[in-house]
């Protein structure tokens, strides 16, 4: 049965040969060659901005390459549009969600597909198939929920379901795990294995070397738009790959400076809030962050982290309780007020909450300070100062961009994150809220961001770090608060905490007294 399915796959061998793609000021792909066979997982590895997404968009027919060709089963195929790609059996999960927030999950999934009821939608039939698929692959999601109500992790599941639903032979997964919890990643791996057994080919992009080792058969490493090497996964290891990617060795351990704790910069008292569906999302959350410490919030995605960050940032209303930043009560105040009180914010959804994609880098950099000197002189903007300031940030934080006028939406995912970080940190806030700050960053950039956060800590800032990466929390935090179903299960100091205990807390298990 599997054998037959395997042989029936339309794509037995896909090759991209000598692909070149030039964007204004950036050579995103330079004579890139990759190939993948039925049943294989090819991992694409590379720094932020190396050209991975661009290459995949070419394969999916979204971009036209300037040179090069794509062959399927040794035949050159024209891929001029996603329709061509879909017709060839290629499916893609995009790095940035390609979902329509105002539509339901099932509507998003069947969008563009013919219906069993002719011109009318067959949503009930589709919802059943989706439920089957999500059970089969462990991708739980309510088909009738609106996408705007979903957490980032759930949205990612919808993206994967969308491709599975279309029965693609070759799946392109552009950083699918960036937004998944470690548990969810562990659940995804068997799914992928199952798919390869059925003869699917998979191109898998990730910055997490652990996943590369666990999932792929071979790896292609890109740097600056060029292929550095392609090797069998079995013949390499994480350190070698990291070196190949960033061109240098990475730190194994971080130095944490001795800091004396200062005043309380964030105080959250009995905070309650509801989620988009109107259900309680935060239940009497209480904690504080003091100057010079990093408090990590650990938890499985969807347990109230998003609401916690939004309420603190003034983006969502609290139903009761208090938020105090640097001594000022900011409960249910407008974001501008919260910013003024001394908060910096690195949001989870960086493309939309953190930036305005159609604005230039400079414009995004001054977004929060456009009414203040030296950026503004009276009602006017000082463009020279803006240019100087933006240039400094871009250089200091190594944001990879052709010009300062480039639209932020055109930056690679990792570079958007660096830009937000640059803006928020250099505003010198007393308190910094970092929600998933290294999601989607390459290992080099991640190390860089971590160093910056530790620097801020050493400089006496208080930081609330919301992260689903336990590794990250262990590396950076001084204390760890575990959140489960909107409640703080416990707050542990870093030397008390061990992974096993944390894992139980994150699953909602309070240890029975022994």
């Amino acid at each position, binding site marked *: 049965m599997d054998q037959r399915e395997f042989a029936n796959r339309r794509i037995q061998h896909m090759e991209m040969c000598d692909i070149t793609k030039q964007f204004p000021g950036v050579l995103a792909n330079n004579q890139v060659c990759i190939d993948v066979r039925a049943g294989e997982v090819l991992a694409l590895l590379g720094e932020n901005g190396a050209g991975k997404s661009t290459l995949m968009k070419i394969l*999916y027919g*979204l*971009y036209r390459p300037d040179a090069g060709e794509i062959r399927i089963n040794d035949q050159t195929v024209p891929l001029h*549009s*996603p*329709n061509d790609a*879909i017709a060839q059996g290629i499916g*893609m999960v*995009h790095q940035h*969600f*390609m*979902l*329509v*927030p*105002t*539509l339901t999950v099932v*509507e*998003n999934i*069947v*969008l*563009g*597909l*013919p*219906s069993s009821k002719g*011109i*009318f*939608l067959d949503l009930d039939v589709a919802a059943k198939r989706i439920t089957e698929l999500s059970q089969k692959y462990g991708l739980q999601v309510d088909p009738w929920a609106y996408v705007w109500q979903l957490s980032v992790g759930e949205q990612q599941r919808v993206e994967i379901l*969308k491709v599975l639903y279309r029965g693609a032979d070759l799946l392109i997964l552009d950083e699918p795990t960036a937004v998944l919890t470690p548990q969810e990643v562990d659940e995804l791996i068997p799914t992928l294995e199952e798919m390869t057994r059925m003869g699917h080919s998979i191109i898998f992009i990730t910055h997490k070397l652990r996943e590369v080792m666990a999932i792929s058969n071979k790896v292609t490493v890109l740097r600056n738009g060029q292929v550095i090497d392609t090797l069998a996964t079995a013949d390499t290891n994480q350190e070698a790959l990291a070196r190949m990617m960033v061109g240098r060795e990475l730190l194994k351990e971080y130095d944490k400076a001795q800091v004396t704790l200062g005043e309380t910069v964030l105080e959250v008292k009995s905070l309650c809030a509801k989620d988009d569906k109107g259900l309680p999302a935060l239940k009497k959350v209480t904690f504080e962050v003091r100057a010079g410490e990093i408090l990590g919030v650990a938890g499985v995605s969807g347990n109230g982290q998003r609401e916690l960050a939004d309420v603190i940032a003034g983006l969502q209303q609290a139903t009761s309780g208090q938020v105090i930043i640097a001594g000022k009560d900011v409960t249910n105040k407008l974001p501008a007020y919260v910013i003024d009180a001394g908060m910096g914010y690195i949001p989870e959804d960086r493309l939309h909450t953190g930036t305005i994609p159609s604005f230039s880098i400079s414009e995004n950099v001054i977004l929060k300070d456009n009414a203040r000197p030296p950026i503004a002189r009276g009602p006017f903007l000082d463009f020279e100062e803006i240019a100087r300031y933006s240039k400094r940030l871009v250089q200091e934080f190594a944001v990879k961009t052709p010009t300062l006028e480039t639209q932020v939406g055109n930056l690679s995912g990792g570079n958007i994150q660096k830009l937000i970080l640059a803006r928020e940190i250099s505003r010198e806030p007393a308190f910094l809220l970092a929600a998933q700050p290294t999601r989607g960053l390459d290992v080099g950039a991640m190390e860089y961001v971590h160093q910056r956060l530790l620097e801020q800590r050493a400089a006496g800032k208080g930081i609330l770090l919301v992260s689903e990466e336990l590794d990250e929390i262990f590396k950076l935090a001084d204390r760890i608060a575990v959140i489960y179903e909107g409640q703080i299960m416990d707050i542990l100091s870093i030397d008390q905490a061990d992974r096993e205990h944390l894992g139980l807390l994150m699953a909602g298990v309070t240890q029975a007294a022994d």
Partner: protein
Amino acid sequence: MIDQLLQTHIIIGVLATGVRLSTPFLLAALGEMFTQRSGVFNLGVEGIMLMGAFSGFWVTLVTGTPMLGILAAIIVGALMGLLMAFVSVTMQAKQGISGIGLYMLGWGLAGFLFRITVGYVTSVEGFRPIAIPILSDIPILGTVLFNHNWMVYFSLLLVPISWVVLFKTTWGLKVRAVGVTPEAADTLGVSVRGIRYACVVIGSIMAGLAGAFLTLGHTNMYGDNLTAGRGFIAVALVYFGRWNPWGILAGSLFFSIVDALQLWVQVLGLDIPYEFAVMAPYVLTVVALAAVSGRIWEPAALGKPFDREA
């Protein structure tokens, strides 16, 4: 004084008039709803209505067959829609400006063509009311709803039809997606351009019909600037109706019934300054809009041209 208004035959008169007055708004606004749902903002509705009004009238005058006039209005509406779609979708021009351009074009062209083809005020035999058997005998409701010409029925029928098309068909799903997140629709192989062209043309055909209603189903004549701003009101009603056919029906009926009411208030000589009376539909519609609370789902990509690599 008020009891004068509360007599049954007057209430019936007001409601029946309101239903009749709502037809051009309903046709044009439902069309513009499709246009905007796909992400295109067509401010040229008024100009298309004028061209539809003129062409419907002229063809009827020449042929004596109002149905041919309707056909002409449909063709003219479609052509103007194609022009709008070309400028705003293919050329990616600023939609507000091209809409105003289309309005001026329609206004100038309709006046010019009327001058050279007809050139004097005259009337045609338009559509007569058709009393729907049985239904029109229902007291009150019969006269209010079931004693109009076919275009009134047609416009009312279009409300559930539009709703079904928009929310229950695969095509409607594409429209809703394209107007919010065109990139997402694009990655699933939905032709953003194709959908937008179709929606702009559909919207324009309906604007053409709305114009033809004024000449063939209402006044039976054509005159300079006949539409008198109704196209712009229709665009506003799309916002009022929150891009939903039922909302648009509510808005169109509300506006028109208040308008009919104020005419009757004047006709009955009630002691209300006429300035207040004529402003009432506009003011009350704005007030009603403000009072209806709830989240506004403006199609997020409304007015934004789509370009994959930009």
